[in-house]
């Protein structure tokens, strides 16, 4: 067993709309190790979100192979993909994406429910995750009663409650002011220190510095890999 968690080889993604082909990704090679903190940067429209959605099994590549945790995942059925999303991957979205009808606690508990975890374990895991992000005291609130920064903290708790192999974050600070953004980044950095593998898309070079390395993408290709030296 290698310590490689994510391995992409020759991944391309072509969108076909109205007979127009958009090459969102063209031959991406990528290797991410367990415990790594990788940031992905690049101009708008270069394919960052597309890459993240393939990593997160929300979408599948047009060509190329993807090995997650030593297991090829291209050919899997829809239910199996859902299962892997549920167990191996934690998502953090730019627009938080908490479910408005569910309380903070219920939002965090949701992926555990899908896993069929017994209620007592769910409670322990969800509470622990909420404590970790400092939102334990808001468990009974509805998302609409929280500030943006608080909502994103809850989203982080939801992503890590199930102890996934990797956290995927797409512009997690994009909808936040700089102060709230800072504190969410701080939180991710702490999680990384605790051993979490993180892949994060961000524009903000300040935040990219938290990462072990930054992958630059331009027009669907990896153009430069830069190992952060700051720490």
């Amino acid at each position, binding site marked *: 067993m290698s310590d490689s968690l994510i391995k992409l080889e020759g991944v391309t993604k072509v969108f076909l709309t109205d007979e127009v082909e958009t090459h969102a990704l063209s031959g991406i090679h990528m290797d991410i190790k367990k415990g790594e903190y990788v940031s992905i940067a690049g101009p708008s429209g270069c394919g960052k*979100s597309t890459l*993240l*959605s393939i990593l*997160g099994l*929300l*979408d599948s590549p047009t060509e190329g192979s993807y090995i997650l945790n030593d297991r090829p995942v291209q050919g899997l059925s*829809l*239910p199996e993909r*859902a*299962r892997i*999303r*549920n*167990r191996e991957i934690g*998502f953090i*979205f*730019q*627009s938080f*994406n908490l*479910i*408005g*009808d569910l309380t903070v606690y219920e939002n965090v508990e*949701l*992926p555990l429910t*899908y*896993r069929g975890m017994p209620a007592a374990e769910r409670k322990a895991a969800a509470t622990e995750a909420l404590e970790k992000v400092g939102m334990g005291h808001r468990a009974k609130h509805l*998302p*609409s009663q929280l500030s943006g920064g608080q909502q994103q903290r809850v989203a982080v708790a*939801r992503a890590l409650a199930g102890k996934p192999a990797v956290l995927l974050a*797409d512009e997690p600070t*994009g*909808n936040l002011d700089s102060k709230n953004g800072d504190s969410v980044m701080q939180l991710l950095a702490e999680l990384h220190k605790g051993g979490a593998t993180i892949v994060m898309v961000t524009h903000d070079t300040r935040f990219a510095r938290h990462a072990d390395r930054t992958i630059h993408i331009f027009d669907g290709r990896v153009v430069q890999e830069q190992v952060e030296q700051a720490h």
Partner: protein
Amino acid sequence: MISSILQDLRIGFRVLLKEKSFCLLAVFVLALGIGGVTTMFSVINGTMLRGFSYPNADRLAGVQVIDVTQKNANVNGFGSQIFTLDYEAIREQQKSFDLLAAYINGATVNVTFNGVPQRYTGAYVSADFFRILGVSPVLGRDFAPDDDKAGAAKVALISTQLWQRDFGSSPGVVGKAIRLNGKSATIIGVMPPGFSFPVNEQIWIPLYCEYPPFPRNSPNAQGANPAVLGLIKRGVPFDQATAEVTTIAHQLAKAFPDTNKKFDTALVEPLIKTFTPPALTQLLWTMLACCVGILLIACVNVMNMQFARAALRAKELAVRSSLGATRFRLIRQMLTESLLLASVGALAGIGVAYWATDWLNALTHAQANPIPSYITFDIDRSVLFFVVGSAVLAALASGLIPAWISSRASAVEALKESGRGNTGRAIGVITRGLVVFQIFITCILLIASLLQLQSILRQQRVDYGYDTDGLLAARMALMDGDYPTPEARKLFFDRLMRELRASPDFENAALTNRFRMTFSGNGKIEIEGRAYKTDDSDRPLANFEQVSEGYFDTLGAKIREGRDFNLDDTDMKLPVAIVNAAFAKKYYGTESALGRRFRTVGNNGQLFGPWRTIIGVVSTVRMPAPFNQPNVDATGFYVPYFSSTFGPVQPGPVSQQFATVIARPRGAAGPARAHAVSASLQRTVNQVDANLPLYFVGTPRENQDTFLAQNRIVAAMFSIFGAVAIILSAVGLYGVMSFSVNQRTQEFGIRMALGADTNRILQMVLRQGAIQLAIGLALGLGLTLLATFAFGDAIANFLFQISPRDPLTYAAVGLLLTAVALISTLVPARRATLVDPMIALRAE
């Protein structure tokens, strides 16, 4: 103000034109709802609200004297008893009426003109009958007091329809001689076109000329108990007239306790009310309530669509209010749109109602047993008022709450980036609640329709215990002119039976007093050797029929014990009876009934028949008509045709004017064979009496069916109600589920990103539908069940041989609604599973 309302209208039109599919669906749904309720209202209007179109319509009164304890008879509208002598007493003493008249309608009148014998439906009426209505003949003259006397020269008025059909529209018909009920008579006039009062009469004849007043204790005599109508004096309220006639009825009850004791309560009502018995009134209002239920379902559908639109327009509304629109202004704009919709829906609904009333008019007047001719279903002024009213109500019901709630959404909330706010959640709860309400109403409607449907099916499939398709039955009326005495009638019948049995076309033939092979009588009896109270309250009821020898053979019923009647069985020799197996079992158990005796008890326990010795036991064929008759079971007895069921033994043969003859054709069985020999039956009758028309000719089943035709229409209408309700509910559930799925697209995407697979999403949506269904069903089934306990008797009146709590019906409604809900939820649920989880990555 006016200009701003005009602006609202203009904007409303523009908005609605833009949303074509919403508009089409809303108009369709409202048209069904408004069309249905309008149709039903025009039925009620035509049957009992509009009344008569005669000049004196507002002063026409029906006069009844009833026994208040006879609930069933009163509810079905045949509980009145006014003997002609009572009528005369009332007429002389009363001061409330300008004019009174007695009449017998729906009577058989035998007329021979130009050598062709015909049976007409006619009425025997007092001289003032037409003057009370304010209607005069268009040709010839009205009846004069001298025409309406025993022994007067016979005269008749005919309807325009008859005049055209059988008398060649000749003006010379006035003064023409015809043979009427065996006597010569003169046609003295023709009534106006379309006139056939009171029901579907073709000919009118003075009452006393045909049926002079009978002594009070001859209750079974033809014409002894006429109906009474009057022209109430101007300014005299009906209550006052009721009180006055009640006083007179009291006196008569005291003076003639034998016959009148219990009939001491008068009921003077507008004539249209007398003509609409409470059971019919109840039925019609129930049907209108069903239509209102459908309209409610329709309104709820439109209301849910409005909620959906309001949610989509939340931003627009917020922008408007941030630009300074008051809440009132927003509500007004939305209500204007609702009114526009409801108006178009109402127009389409009137179209539906036109079509439906046409259909109903044709259907109800074309059947063999048509409804009264004065009842027509039209879209008249009061119906139009009703339409406008229901359209405005529909607009308010479907538009006000959505407008109110969505205008409440604060501008801040709606303009905020993050999705559904409190208003959105409130709307979600309300729309789901409304779907529950729809399912609830649909549930009730479906139970009602299904029970009705099964009830009529059971009526149609009643097993009479013999082959009702294989016989030919016909009715004959032996009127006094040709047959002045029972002996004369007996001579005719004896000859007819001989001729029929000698005919190569018939295997056997017999006589019965059973009306159209459907109705026989029932009355109280007592069994010899048992102790009874002095009044008749503990005497059991039994069905009875007067039949000739050979009757059971002709029917195909088996004599199980003893023997059939023979020509020597007369009451003077020995009163005998044959009882059916149900009677024998009930009263004699395992012992033989032969040789045992029983007698009839009439007139409230005061008129006894002779003790009748049982000489035979016959297999049980159904005796009661296919309608609900409380306390009537299968037990029955038969007495010889030329004897009287009630009262003491008569010297000489007893023979009614009216008889039903049945004949079994030789050869193949079945209705075709029966019809093939009907000409032969008429020929044989005319060999004995050239002037005697046969009527109601057909197989027993065909005769029985004519009484069910109106029930079939009722059942058809209930089925339509049920079908429309279920369609509208399906549309409603589908709409709400679709809308909710659309609203939650983002949420489904997030859930999938978090690892929910398609099954889980499918289940989630289905569960939401299932919860609404379960609550709606629980309420609908549960409350209906409760209602059957509260109003069991009234409901049972409408149903035949099926319990209002029939478990199969409830289960079927539950299954049907579940299936419909599943289908209408499955499509949106499938759509939910097709959501691309990528949507979660995209910012809104």
